[in-house]
């Protein structure tokens, strides 16, 4: 399912909103969530799961072509942990 398919099925279930509003709402939610992570904030959605940030410390990497070592700076990456309900619904 893509973002536009998600917008389509939400619009079907919310006939009082027009498609344009549904599109703005979906984009608004994703932007709000992205902004929270960008600001270093966690996201917790009961049943669905939580998003947090994992710190990757800086390390010595290697250029695989030349074999030179390079310092890879520390990084922060988004991480998603599915909630109990989602895990149970997806599992066989």
């Amino acid at each position: 399912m893509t973002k536009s398919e998600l917008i389509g099925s939400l619009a079907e279930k919310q006939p009082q909103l027009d498609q344009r509003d549904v599109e703005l709402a979906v984009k608004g939610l994703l932007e709000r969530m992205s902004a929270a992570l960008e600001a270093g904030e966690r996201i917790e959605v009961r049943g669905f799961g939580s998003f947090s940030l994992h710190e990757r410390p800086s390390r010595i990497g290697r250029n695989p072509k030349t074999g030179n070592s390079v310092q890879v700076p520390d990084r922060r990456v988004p991480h998603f942990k599915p909630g109990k309900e989602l895990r149970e619904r997806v599992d066989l």
Partner: protein
Amino acid sequence: MALTKADLADSLFAELGLNKREAKEFVELFFEQICQSLGNGEAVKLSGFGHFGVRHKNSRPGRNPKTGEEIPIAERRVVTFRASHKLKERVDAHARSRG
């Protein structure tokens, strides 16, 4: 403080003028729709945000790390998430700018 469904509903109320009840219902439906798709084994790709996938894991022998006892782990299906490049960049660039 973590961002919650209530915060998301507030932002739909403030930015899009949905009334509070509609906003709350919309947020519920948004996550329900994603859960439903994943529950059907179908991936959800939200461009600019990330990709929720469903992975099939075969059964494998496991072990209780405390007792060392062998216990089989049944085959199962799990959700994976890969953040989009755009989201990864936003999250990381911000961290870097703060030093």
